[in-house]
């Protein structure tokens, strides 16, 4: 390696910093440090003249390491690093520190102490810079194709977006027809229009306008050239890495050739097998060869293999004019290579029959909202008539029950969020079609939080729909009249009601779609406590997962109404497009690296890695070693902290780099107080220190901050090393345990701190000298308080006595 030549650039931010820090002393101190060949002082270095000084020094070959003390480093670093890279130096050889928020401002009342701390900070940055290695940028090829799992409105909209943008899209739907829950729901709030209507895709050249929207089946959706629709199919295996997934699809036979079927309906007229139609709430029957409703996609029949007599009957084969029926079709396995995966598996109604007191599945006139939706739908089994399933007579008295299995700690504790609106929509649709219907909605709380949603509630009251605040305890059947009785307390009137009803409609909880758990396992994704797919960050990245290249949308993350589902679908599409657009993934190699000589056979790191980036590979000597995927590694270092053999290092946070920094930070005290090393994670911990400075909070200058990528990287022996190099106390500052940017890092650190405390006790060192703190960026006050508290605690404890006197 070339000789290390460090250039140090000290920004005094005009007079701001020089009022506290003695810059002449700093310049004099820095220029004598070995390896430093250039020291410059200016009012700023991140732009203009200051930045040119750095660029010139790099271009002239005068320096090959850059240390800049600049305010707002998290912002200025971007500019400096870019300029240095353009000047021809590896951008990872730049170290930027903050003498303002981390030193001058919090210690403004003790200028000489602040100056001494600044010296230590500069020395640490220089020592670290000297040990830094260039980091390469890696490029990984990515296929410009995507897999969308789930053909409901979320999946279909994502698929259209991506296909219109030119990507190859595979849309996989497990049912024989597209549409998902939406197709069954009939109509949507708040627009009251058909659920199955989507915006026309760009391929619909003849009628595409900015405003055009159509039913899926006539939208030209199926004719999008780069959209491959696979119905009756499910994902059974996924291998590979972001950008290059190999997906295995199992496609069940349809027994009808989609390309030949002309929907003439002759087959259904001859089919002798008649079974209850589940899709239509069993309110009608269908044949073994069937379509759910006439307007479905794909526009072809399907044979229900569980009831068809196949070659023993084969009447449909005889009658089919286009020879579309192929009874010998077999299950196919299809392999797809895609760059990205979008999960749009949605949700479904909870099985209300588990709530015994409501007798769903037992009393035929107790139905669910989805079943009612089939009655309201003109294409449905009753042609829009609202009937009692028991005798098919018109239902004139309807009671609706909200929160069935939702907001219920016995079943699903969460609020499904859309059921109030669904019931209000259904009640008003029925009331407008059949004004003499008597409708009562029993509710715990009516939740109409969306745009225009409250008007539904208002309209329902205007229409004369009755509301009872109370959750019914039981539905019973009057044996004489065959009518239902709903037993409820009107809590507002404190009156017990026995509501007589022809039809009781339950609003069941919305739960993750069947197969969600299996799919999560196949994809390596986590589910939340309610069983829905967990997004990476609900606030900022609602459609992304912790795995690069895999996205979520629609009800797969939580029950959603149609507008939110659309937002989600478009968001997932743009995120996937952004990922796939360049055909490659560019990533720096600030990743973990395994020393295979030390590594052996344990499985700690592959299990601990939050990103599945580590796999075990066999060696020629017959044992296994860990190997890190540079593509999947996010650079947190949790594996480093986990490895019992010190066989893993994280580039740019190697033990020698960290130790050099530690030593330097502890080398100068300048205060009368005991030195404290605050090891802060680069995310919330370090930024909390920033914000304490920004807000001009005070804490003593004996507290020295060292940045690590994530506190999860820390090993127990590093705490001991800190004491050995002169720290009287150690603070570990990480994200909140449930808010760690690397999932598990701060929890791991917490455990290691506890372990280290036990060890310290054994060594005769007071365990209170080591403490873990969790905070977020805005909690600068918490950091200042913690620093003050630690200092006072150490002053009380007195100087540290190390065994062996070292």
């Amino acid at each position, binding site marked *: 390696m070339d000789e290390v030549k460090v250039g140090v650039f000290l920004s005094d931010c005009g007079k701001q910093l020089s009022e506290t820090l003695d810059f002449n002393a700093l310049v004099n101190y820095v220029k004598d440090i070995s390896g430093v060949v250039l020291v410059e002082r200016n009012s700023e270095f991140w732009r203009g003249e200051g930045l040119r000084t750095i660029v010139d020094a790099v271009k002239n070959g005068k320096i090959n390491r850059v240390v800049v003390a600049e305010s707002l480093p998290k912002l200025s670093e971007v500019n400096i690093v870019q300029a240095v890279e353009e000047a021809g130096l590896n951008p990872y050889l730049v170290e930027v520190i903050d003498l303002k928020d981390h030193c001058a401002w919090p210690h403004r009342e003790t200028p000489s102490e602040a100056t001494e701390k600044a010296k230590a900070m500069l020395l640490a940055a220089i020592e670290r810079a000297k040990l830094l290695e260039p980091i390469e940028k890696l490029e990984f090829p990515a296929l410009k194709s995507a897999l969308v799992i789930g053909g409901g409105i979320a999946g279909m909209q994502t698929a259209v977006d991506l296909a219109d943008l030119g990507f190859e899209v595979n849309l996989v739907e497990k049912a024989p027809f597209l549409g998902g829950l939406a197709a069954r729901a009939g109509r949507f709030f708040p627009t009251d229009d058909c659920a199955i209507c989507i915006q026309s895709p760009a391929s619909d050249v003849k009628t595409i306008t900015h405003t055009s929207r159509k039913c899926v089946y006539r939208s030209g959706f199926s004719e999008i050239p780069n959209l491959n629709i696979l119905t009756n199919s499910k994902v059974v295996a996924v291998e590979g890495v972001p950008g290059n997934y190999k997906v295995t699809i199992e496609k069940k036979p349809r027994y009808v050739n989609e390309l030949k079927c002309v929907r003439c309906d002759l087959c259904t007229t001859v089919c002798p097998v008649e079974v209850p139609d589940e899709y239509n709430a069993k309110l009608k029957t269908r044949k073994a060869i069937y379509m759910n409703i006439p307007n479905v996609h794909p526009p072809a029949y399907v044979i229900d293999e569980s009831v068809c007599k196949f070659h023993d009957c084969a009447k449909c084969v005889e009658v089919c004019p286009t020879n579309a029926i192929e009874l010998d079709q077999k299950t196919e396995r299809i392999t797809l290579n895609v760059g990205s995966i979008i999960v749009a598996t949605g949700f479904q109604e909870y099985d209300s029959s588990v709530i015994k*007191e409501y007798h769903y599945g037992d009393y035929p006139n107790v139905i669910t909202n989805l079943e009612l939706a089939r009655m309201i739908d003109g294409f449905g089994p009753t042609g829009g008539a609202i009937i009692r399933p028991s005798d098919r007579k018109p239902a004139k008295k309807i009671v609706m029950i909200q*929160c069935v299995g939702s*907001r*219920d*700690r*016995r079943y699903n504790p969460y609020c499904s969020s859309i059921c109030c609106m669904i019931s209000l929509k259904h009640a008003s649709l029925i009331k407008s079609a059949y004004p003499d219907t008597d409708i009562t909605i029993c509710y*715990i*709380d009516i939740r109409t939080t969306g745009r225009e949603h409250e008007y539904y509630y208002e309209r329902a009251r205007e229409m004369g729909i009755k509301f009872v*605040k*109370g*959750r*019914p*305890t*039981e539905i019973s059947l009057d044996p004489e009249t065959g009518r239902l009785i709903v*037993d*409820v*307390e*009107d*809590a507002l009137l*404190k009156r*017990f009601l026995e509501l007589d009803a022809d039809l009781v409609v339950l609003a069941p909880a919305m739960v993750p779609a069947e197969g969600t758990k299996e799919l999560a396992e196949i994809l390596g994704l986590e589910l939340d406590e309610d069983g829905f797919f967990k997004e990476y960050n609900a606030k900022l990245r609602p459609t992304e997962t912790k795995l690069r290249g895999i996205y979520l949308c629609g009800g797969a993350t939580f029950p959603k109404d149609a507008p939110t589902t659309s937002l989600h679908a478009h968001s997932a599409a743009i995120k996937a497009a952004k990922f796939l657009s360049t055909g490659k993934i560019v990533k720096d190699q600030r990743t973990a690296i395994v020393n295979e000589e030390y590594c052996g056979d344990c499985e700690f790191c592959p299990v601990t890695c939050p990103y599945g980036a580590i796999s075990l590979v066999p060696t020629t000597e017959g044992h296994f070693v860990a190997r890190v995927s540079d593509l999947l590694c996010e650079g947190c270092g949790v594996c480093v902290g986990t490895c019992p053999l010190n066989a893993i290092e994280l580039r740019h946070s190697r033990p020698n780099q960290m130790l050099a920094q530690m030593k330097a930070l502890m080398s100068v005290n300048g205060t009368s107080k005991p030195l404290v090393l605050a090891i802060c994670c680069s995310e919330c911990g370090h930024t909390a220190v920033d914000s304490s400075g920004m807000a001009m909070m005070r804490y003593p200058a004996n507290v020295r901050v060292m940045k690590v990528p994530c506190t999860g990287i820390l090993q127990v022996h590093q705490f001991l090393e800190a004491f050995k190099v002169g720290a009287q106390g150690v603070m570990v500052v990480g994200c909140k345990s449930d808010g760690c940017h690397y999932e598990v890092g701060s929890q791991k650190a917490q455990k290691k701190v506890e372990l280290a405390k036990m060890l310290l006790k054994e060594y005769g060192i007071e365990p209170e000298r080591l403490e873990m703190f969790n905070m977020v960026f805005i909690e600068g006050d918490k950091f200042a308080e913690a620093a003050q508290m630690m200092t006072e605690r150490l002053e009380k404890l007195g100087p540290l006595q190390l065994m062996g006197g070292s």
Partner: protein
Amino acid sequence: MEYVRAEKTTNLTFSNMITSRLGGETITLCYQCGTCASSCPVAKLTPRFNPRELIKLSLLGEKDEVISGDAIWLCCSCYNCQERCPQKVEIADVIYALRNIALEEGYIPNIYSEFASALLNDGRIVKVSKFVENKRSALGLPSLQPTGVDAIRKILSATGFNKLQQKKEETS
């Protein structure tokens, strides 16, 4: 209509007192859906008892009204409400906790305190009357043996029941 000032109605210490007791832990989960009330056989017979209302009053801190009233003693402990509560509020157990608080503060209906003394004295809450004895012998049942009253007293004193009862007897 009587208006109650807000600060009077938010006496959090009462709900804290309840949640810190065995059986009372779940009271704050209540969201007043009324499933308990419509499940309650007693509430349907008399307006003097409504479990939903009792919980609401307790959560609002109406301690005096709750513990001095007769509502808490009207629960028949059928546990219907507890079975069906969607928030898993252990309603019947909450009512036991309320009864305990009431007793500690000197509120207990006479009939209950008579039962309690009977239990301490004879090991039974109802005395065995001549009528019962005759009825049993007519049915061919053996006559009732004396209970192990010493053992029962031991258990009751271990639970502190006897002290509560003594306190009650002293105050009345």
